[in-house]
């Protein structure tokens, strides 16, 4: 009796804990008042509209999109061959490589950011945008390698030999029969990498400069000076964007099979 009563309660509390903040943000963004508050004072879309008029958000959104798309693509360009090598050949240092590749998820982002700033940007005057790009590529790489590896491990390797015996080169076999069969895994890795990069704060925090900011950093900065509901509106919009992407991915790819 108690157990039957207990589990719905736990489930309810869990849902409140997970979804509650999201609902509060949505409610706060629909406020017609001047300050960020919950419960909202009145109802309006003015803050949602205002988000699109703030110029720095547009710039930092563009920067975040650029990093998320190209950082993830770069990670895939590096990660797919790495995953292939790790899954198909018994390399002497395979475990070490796997660990090194995973480091960016294990090491706190704040350390990665600080290290890049202190040893790349400061001494060499390294371009900030480039440093951010490298940082995001490195951060996404572990996901790229892992997700693509999982797909490759599930794919028989003899189909490559079959392709070769039918006249294909080794490289041709990779593109003709390996890539098409791990396409789902690659797309899943892309989405996971995109979201990871887009939501990334600690590394980007150290690598922001004049005019170069990612969206989350810009939002932090905005809140320090302006405490209005537009920040809640932007947060809600971003949350819907993420949900939309993952929903589409699940719908068309069966995203959850890969992650």
């Amino acid at each position: 009796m108690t157990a039957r009563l207990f589990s719905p309660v736990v489930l309810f509390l869990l849902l409140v804990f997970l979804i509650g903040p999201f609902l509060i943000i949505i409610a706060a963004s629909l406020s017609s008042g001047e300050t960020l508050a919950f419960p909202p004072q009145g109802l309006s879309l003015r803050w949602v509209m205002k988000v699109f008029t703030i110029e720095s958000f547009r710039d930092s959104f563009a920067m975040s999109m650029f990093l998320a798309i190209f950082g993830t693509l770069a990670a895939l360009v590096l990660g797919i061959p790495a995953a292939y090598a790790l899954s198909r050949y018994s390399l002497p240092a395979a475990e070490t490589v796997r660990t090194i590749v995973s480091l960016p998820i294990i090491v706190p982002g704040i350390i990665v950011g600080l290290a890049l700033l202190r040893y790349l940007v400061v001494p060499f005057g390294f371009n900030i945008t480039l440093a951010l790009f490298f940082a995001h590529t490195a951060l996404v790489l572990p996901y790229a390698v892992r997700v693509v590896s999982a797909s490759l491990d599930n794919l028989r390797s003899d189909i490559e030999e079959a392709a070769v015996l039918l006249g294909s080169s080794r490289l041709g076999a990779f593109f003709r029969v390996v890539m098409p069969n791990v396409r789902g895994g690659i797309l899943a890795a892309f989405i996971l990498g995109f979201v990871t990069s887009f939501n990334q704060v600690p590394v980007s925090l150290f690598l922001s400069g004049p005019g170069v900011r990612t969206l989350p950093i810009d939002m932090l900065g905005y809140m320090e000076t302006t405490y209005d509901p537009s920040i809640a509106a932007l947060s809600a919009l971003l949350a819907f964007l993420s949900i939309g992407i993952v929903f589409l991915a699940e719908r068309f790819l069966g995203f959850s099979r890969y992650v």
Partner: protein
Amino acid sequence: MSDAYLQLDKLTLAYGDTVAVRNLDLTIGKGELVALLGPSGCGKTTTMRAIAGLLTPASGRIGLDGADITRVSANKRAVGLVFQSYALFPHLTVYENVAFGLRLKGISGPDLDARVGAGLKSVGLSAFAGRKPAELSGGQQQRVALARSMVMEPKVLLLDEPLSNLDARLRLEMRAELQRVQKETGVTMIFVTHDQVEALALADRIVVMLNGGIEQIGTPEEIYNNPVSAFVADFVGFENVFALKDGKLVTPNGPVALSGTAPDVAAGLAWRPRAVSLGSGPFQGTVRGTSFAGNTREYLLDTPLGPIKAEIDAGLPPHEIGSALAFDLPVAGAANLKRFG
């Protein structure tokens, strides 16, 4: 074997430091259907992979159709391979699987259609052209794999354990299918198997392999009736195998004289259960086990010579477990082994 089509000369194959096949010599004629038979680890699959070009020999030479192909890469050898797992491309339809190699050759349009169509028709899968491999049964997948290799008109078709993944009924069908394809196209076919029944049933010639070398080469009749070594004898169903020393059988209880005179040249003698005569003879045994096998009844005897397996017509009166039984190992019914060990 005057017309050598495929020739392996002193072929040594290794994985890293592990030598899998040593100094293998083998000549196969055009249009032959040859079985590489042996237990797992004997080097038969390794040899097949080397012929396909998937493994570079450590030393030795492979000749095919008058050319040295030892260093020719796998995609230019015109050797087909039907994998044990079939290795169909999961993302492509049956049609596209069969078309894969032809497209790489630059064949397209009606010509491609005609050749893929003919390939699918020959294996009875024309109606399945639009399916994905996952939608086919194991037997159908294998026929797609066969068609995919055969449309390339390979000089040699290799098959890795072509019957071992199929159930008994499909196995008979596939056996007939392979024989038909071979007769119709005259392709040289080599298949790898660990199953002596398949080798005996299907092959023109059997190459028995053991520990990276060839133990015996012969027609199914030769292998079945005249195994040269204790290993081959045991492998093809001679259950009672004895070494021979000074004309006597070597047994756990010392030398035992035969009822007849052993041939001088033999290093050992082997009897099938059928060849053991039960009921009379110089030897005595006790029935330990018996089992009914349709036309025959099998007996396991405890004897001073060690355990003996015998088989008699099921119509004869059965012997009880525990009863004493005289038997003979007639020299005339034995296979003479040239090598023992």
